[in-house]
Each structure stands twice: as structure tokens, then as C-alpha cells.
């Protein structure tokens, strides 16, 4: 019995005296070194009040509200934005806190302190058929907020890679000890752990830019001319795009563009190297200014060549009420100054090509026959010559080689008031519905003198 009491006493003594000693020297190691990251684009109250088209802030930068989930059929989890607008991305992880308390809770340690500021980078990648292409790598801003604008439509991934070093005591004192960094009066050895957090967002920058349209005109009298030659030259001319500050500026060979968009554009006087212009005439309608905010999308139309009375460049603003499907339409109805002047009884070819910024295509626009004109009028892509008197359409002679010809003049209009007005109607629509429409007066002149005296 006495032996039993002695054993019991020994056990109680061990519990009373030894357990606190064990507690006081408890070793600790983090149970994880990864934490979640929260990330979003937009979403503040101020941003939610912005129109989808965006609005200029006090510094003049256009900022927009993120588009609704499921916009244009995108899956859940995709962040939808417009190209050419600025958005703010935000991120948060507990490793960005001032105090390491929350991180300690996650890691299951105590007595820690952050070593320096967190590191955070926002690599932006674009998805293309070959895989991932890093658009922006290091920014070095070390901020949990990032200004993002997407110059071109496409599928992007915005990532935030965050990390922070944490120093912690390898041995912690028990709750009874006042100084947690000291065990038995000695400074404890400290360990380091690199805590990381990462999150990525699928961002689809939606196309809101109407396509460009180039039109070529060539008379049959030009040596070597043909419809195929014209279309080939037109595609070559479109491919012969120049780059300004890294951005493709279609039609640059045709125009001088001033640095200040307010000063506009003017036709380039020298067109050397553009064989198409030397042999024929060209009309180009293209996005200008390049990469303008969605609400300010506009196109410039420039004309060059002997079939035009003057070389001219003019801007047309996109419609302002096309809010239903959130696409942009630019309608350019040209005046007499940019009219096409063709000769009576001289066949000519018309070629039309279109390109769009959402995919790299330079393709011909089809010419519509008389019975198909309704398609263009109802939203189809292509071009045709329309007449104010629809019965007069039959007077337009269509050659087997695709040429057009007028038998009767209608210009000057006061001399041929009984003749119909002709107009070339062109429409191009991109894959999501942004469209460009052109209507150009066509005048049939009696003699060559009208245009040979022109400035072109």
C-alpha cells in the first residue's frame, strides 16, 4: 500500500513539475507556408457607378466598370472588360497585413515577426495558340493595387505572386512565461519561413473596335489590270502596315497623322511604294485615333487617286446609342468632296478588303449582285452600288470579269437631274458585331476632263 502511495506521489509530482517544463520548451514549426489570395478587378463602389463604356477620371484617364458575368457567352469565373479602358485590380492576402497575427493563426505558430515588406508582382500573360506569352513581367511596384488596361482584345491572365518572410522562434515558452522569446532565460533560436500566396484571374478583353475597310478602284484601261490584280494589291497594301510606338496603324502609308488627335489627319502627299495608288484609287476607312476609349471610337476615311476629285481625310465618330449589344458601329456617309468619279463607258473594278484587331485577317469583302443587295442593307458584309431609283440598278453594266460600267452620265447633277443618285454601300462586321458602314456617292462623268484636272 505504501508502495502504491509512493508511486502515486511520484506520478503527481511529475505532472505538477515536469509538464510545465515540457510546455515551456515546446518546439514549433509552421504547418503550412501557403495562404489564399483574394483578387478582383474593379468592384469598389465608385467603380460600380461607372458606365460600361467608361468615363474619364479627374486625370483624364478613361476607366470603366467590369462587364457582367457571362458577357458574350463567357463562362462563370471569367472577368470581362473592354479593350482600351483602364481598370484597377486589387489583391489581398493575410501576408500583406501590418501585424502577423492572422498569419500566425494560419501557420500555427506564435512569437513571429515579418522580415521586411511583402513582395508582390503582377505578371500579365496573354493566351495564344502557342501557349502563354508574358506581356508584362516585373513591375516592381510592390503594391496590392494595379492599373490594368488591355490595348488589344484577347484572353489574358492576370496573376499576383505574393510572398513575405516570417521569422519565428523555434522554441516557444509556455503560456505561464512572460517573455515568449525566452526559454529558461535564454534567447531562443529563430527560424525563417517564406510564406507565399498566388491567384490568377481569367480576363477577357472584349473587342469594341469596328473593322477597317479598304476599297480599291481600277479602270480596265490600266495595263495589267484585272479584278484579281486589284484584290491582290489591296491585300498587299493592307499587309504593308506600319507600326508606330509598337501599335499597328493601318493605312499609315496613306496619311500623315499628327501627334495630337485634335489636329486630325491629312492625306499623305507622297505615296511612293504604294503601287496600288499609282495605278488606281484607294479609299481607306480605319480606326482613328488608334485605341481610343470605347465611347470615343471613331474612324477616319481617306481617299486617294484619280477617281477622287480631291485627296481628303475625314473623321467619323461611332454611334452613341448602340448600347443594347455593347458593340460599336461607325457609319461614314461621305459628301461630294469624297465622291467617286468614274467615266462613262469605261469599265472599272472595285475591290474591298477588311481587317480587324481581334484576329489577324485581311480578307476580301464580297461584291453583291443586285438580288443580294438586301443582305447588305440588312446587316450582311460586302458592298454594292445602290441607286436612288432601284429600277436604275439594272442600268449598271456588270462585266464577266467583275467590272462595273455606266452607260449614262449623272454628273454634274444639275445637268443630269433625271438620272439617279448612285452610291457605293460597304459594310464590314467583326465576329462580335462591331461594324463599319460606308456610303460613298458615285458620279458618272461625261468626259475625262473632270478628274484629269484634279489635284491627285
Amino acid at each position: 500500500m505504501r508502495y502504491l502511495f509512493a508511486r502515486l506521489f511520484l506520478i503527481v509530482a511529475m505532472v505538477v513539475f515536469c509538464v510545465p517544463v515540457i510546455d515551456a520548451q515546446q518546439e514549433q514549426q509552421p504547418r503550412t507556408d501557403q495562404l489564399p489570395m483574394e483578387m478582383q478587378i474593379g468592384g469598389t463602389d465608385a467603380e460600380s457607378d461607372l458606365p460600361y463604356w467608361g468615363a474619364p477620371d479627374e486625370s483624364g484617364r478613361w476607366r470603366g466598370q467590369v462587364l457582367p458575368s457571362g458577357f458574350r457567352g463567357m463562362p462563370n469565373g471569367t472577368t470581362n472588360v473592354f479593350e482600351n479602358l483602364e481598370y484597377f485590380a486589387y489583391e489581398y492576402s493575410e501576408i500583406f497585413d501590418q501585424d502577423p497575427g492572422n498569419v500566425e493563426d494560419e501557420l500555427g505558430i506564435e512569437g513571429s515577426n515579418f522580415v521586411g515588406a511583402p513582395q508582390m508582382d503582377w505578371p500579365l500573360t496573354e493566351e495564344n495558340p502557342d501557349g502563354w506569352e508574358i506581356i508584362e513581367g516585373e513591375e516592381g511596384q510592390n503594391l496590392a493595387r494595379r492599373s490594368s488596361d488591355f490595348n488589344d482584345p484577347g484572353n489574358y491572365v492576370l496573376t499576383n505572386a505574393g510572398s513575405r518572410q516570417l521569422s519565428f522562434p523555434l522554441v516557444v515558452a509556455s503560456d505561464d512565461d512572460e517573455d515568449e522569446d525566452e526559454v529558461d532565460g535564454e534567447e531562443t533560436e529563430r527560424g525563417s519561413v517564406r510564406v507565399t500566396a498566388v491567384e490568377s484571374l481569367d480576363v477577357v478583353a472584349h473587342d469594341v473596335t469596328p473593322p477597317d475597310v479598304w476599297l480599291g478602284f481600277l479602270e480596265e484601261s490600266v495595263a495589267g489590270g484585272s479584278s484579281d490584280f486589284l484584290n491582290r494589291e489591296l491585300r498587299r497594301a493592307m499587309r504593308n502596315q506600319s507600326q508606330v510606338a509598337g501599335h499597328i496603324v493601318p493605312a499609315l502609308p496613306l496619311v500623315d497623322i499628327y501627334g495630337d488627335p485634335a489636329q486630325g489627319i491629312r492625306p499623305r502627299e507622297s505615296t511612293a511604294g504604294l503601287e496600288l495608288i499609282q495605278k488606281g484609287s484607294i479609299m481607306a476607312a480605319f480606326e482613328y485615333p488608334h485605341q481610343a476609349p470605347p465611347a470615343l471610337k471613331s474612324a477616319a476615311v481617306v481617299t486617294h487617286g484619280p477617281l477622287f476629285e480631291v485627296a481628303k481625310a475625314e473623321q467619323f465618330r461611332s454611334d452613341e446609342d448602340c448600347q443594347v449589344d455593347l458593340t460599336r458601329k461607325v457609319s461614314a456617309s461621305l459628301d461630294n468632296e469624297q465622291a467617286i468619279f468614274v467615266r462613262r463607258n469605261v469599265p472599272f473594278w472595285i475591290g474591298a478588303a477588311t481587317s480587324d484587331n481581334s484576329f489577324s485577317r485581311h480578307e476580301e469583302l464580297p461584291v453583291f449582285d443586285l438580288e443580294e443587295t438586301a443582305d447588305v442593307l440588312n446587316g450582311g458584309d460586302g458592298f454594292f452600288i445602290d441607286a436612288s431609283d432601284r429600277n436604275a440598278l439594272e442600268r449598271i453594266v456588270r462585266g464577266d470579269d467583275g467590272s462595273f460600267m455606266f452607260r449614262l452620265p449623272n454628273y454634274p447633277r444639275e445637268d443630269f437631274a433625271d438620272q439617279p443618285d448612285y452610291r457605293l454601300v460597304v459594310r464590314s462586321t467583326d465576329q462580335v458585331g462591331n461594324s463599319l458602314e460606308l456610303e460613298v456617292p458615285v458620279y458618272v462623268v461625261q468626259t475625262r476632263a473632270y478628274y484629269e484636272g484634279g489635284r491627285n
Partner: protein
Amino acid sequence: MKQLVIVVIALCFATVNLGATPSWLEGVPVPWPTSEVKPILPAEIYLVDGSDIPESFVEDKPVHFVVVSDIFADEPPSEFDGVPFHNSTWAGRPLVFWYFTNPDTETRFLASSTESLADNEMIVAPIEPTKNGAIEVFISRRMEYYNENNELTRRFVNSSKGRVAEVKDITPPTCGLQITIGDNTGTVWPIESPVNMYPPPKLADVIFEGSVFCPENSSQHFVVDGIQLGEEMVISPSQGAVYLRAEDELSFMMVLHDNYELDKDSVSFGLSDGAEGEPSVVGTANSGFKVAEVDMPEEPYLFIEAFDTAGNRQLMYIPVVLVE
């Protein structure tokens, strides 16, 4: 009542914590609630041969790493934290970013390789010496699945890992001298060029700027390139020299620089007899002198010597030419 007091105190403490917004969180609407599940998979970094990564690395030396994580598996997770991902499939290859991070300078370097490597491999060269460096990898991979409403949903699965790593300094100091002779001055100093070259020896360009490097004391700026950075930095008289006259009095200031930590107490300079091996100091080290008061050797050189805290040594000799 006691519990209420504790709750009130806790709330006050939480408010204080939220109010202390660090600069990097300014303008960020935190905390924001989220109901989205955030799938996170563990990851571990190894050397490409499968061995554990060492505790220290050598500055500028490329190291081939591999990260092991289920994010590279054929199939994505079918659930996380009890949330099921119905018919989940990967929708794209993993997006992988490797960094060498230096918390001392708050800088990060995104690694890239021209070699064709597996998705989970990267060659990283830690280009800054540090005791607190880190090798980090961040991986995101898009997953598509059907949510509880049978809607196609995209979500990124994430995985990351950071390993604390010391990076040992192997670059010698790049100290120089600013020389003043009456109204004329000149500064000569080396810069590592090309930077981050590996393996050693490292090279330097030695820059001469000022009128003391011209016999006529006209302003000069020239660069002697391809000098081996370290303890054999000898400039020949044909490459550049300090031109002295008998009546000149020289004073010096040191131009101190190292890519990590310079041992400032180790820096010395002076006039040396010859430039072979250790300096043969003429007169008093670490002070100016009058030409007329020193016993000018046949092959006089100015020297500057410096060590960094890792023990890398710089010893540079600049020729001295006496003119009438």
C-alpha cells in the same frame, strides 16, 4: 459581463489592426468577403536531380530547379474543402513563374530560360548576395468544371512555394579613388562589366574621369575595359595614368562600393613601388603626399585595396607618370 468586456476589447483591437493600413494596401478595399473556393495544392522545390535544395547558393551561379506539385497531374482536383468540382478538367497548361527574391533590397527577379524545359523546371540564377534571399515558384492552372447549378465555371487552381536561401557573395568590391592635385581632380573607379557573369573571374571596366589623367591637365573621360575584377587589377601606363609634377601635392578620397557588404575597415590606399603582388607601400598609407617629399620609386603606382565581408578582395594599381 466578463465575456462582453472581452468581446469589446477584441473588437477594439481588430479595429486598430484594420486602421493601420500599410502603404502597399492603400486604396485596396480589404477585407472583402468571398464565397469562392480557392483550391490550393502543396508544392515543394528540389534540385533537378531530386535532391533537397541547399541552404546557400552562389551569386550568379545558375541552378536547375524542379517543383513537384499535383498541379502538374493529369487530372485536376475533384473537390476542395468539401466543394465538389463536377466533371473537372484542366483548361490549359500550367502558368509558372519562378523568382529569385531579395527581401534586403525588396527586389525580385523573374527567371526565364532560353532552354526548352519541362513545365515544372526552371534555371534560376540568384544575382544578388543576401542572407535572406528566397527561391520562389508560383503556379496557376485553369480548371473548368460544372458548379452546383450545372453551370460551366472557370477557376484557377493555385500552388506556390518559397524557400529561404542565403546567396553568397563572390564579387570583389569595386572601390576607387578621387584624387585632388591643386585645382585638378580626377576619379578612377571600376564597375563590374558584364554584370552577373558566371563563372568567375569577373571582369570590370575601369573608368577614368578628370584632368589628373592627362599630361596637359585637360579634362579626360576614358574607359579601360576587360580588366579582371579582383586582386590583379593592374592598369598599364599605356591604358591610363596619373600625371604628376615635382611640385604637386596629392590628397585622396576613397570611392567605396561593393555589391553587398564592404568591410570598410579593410580599405587602404597609397603609393606603391611596382604593381606585382602585394603593395610595396612608399611613404604613409591612407594619406595624401607631396611628390617632392617622397622617395619616388622607378615604377610608381597608386593602389587601392578593399575586402568585402565575404572575403572577396580588390587590389587595383594605377600607374603614376612624372612629367616636367
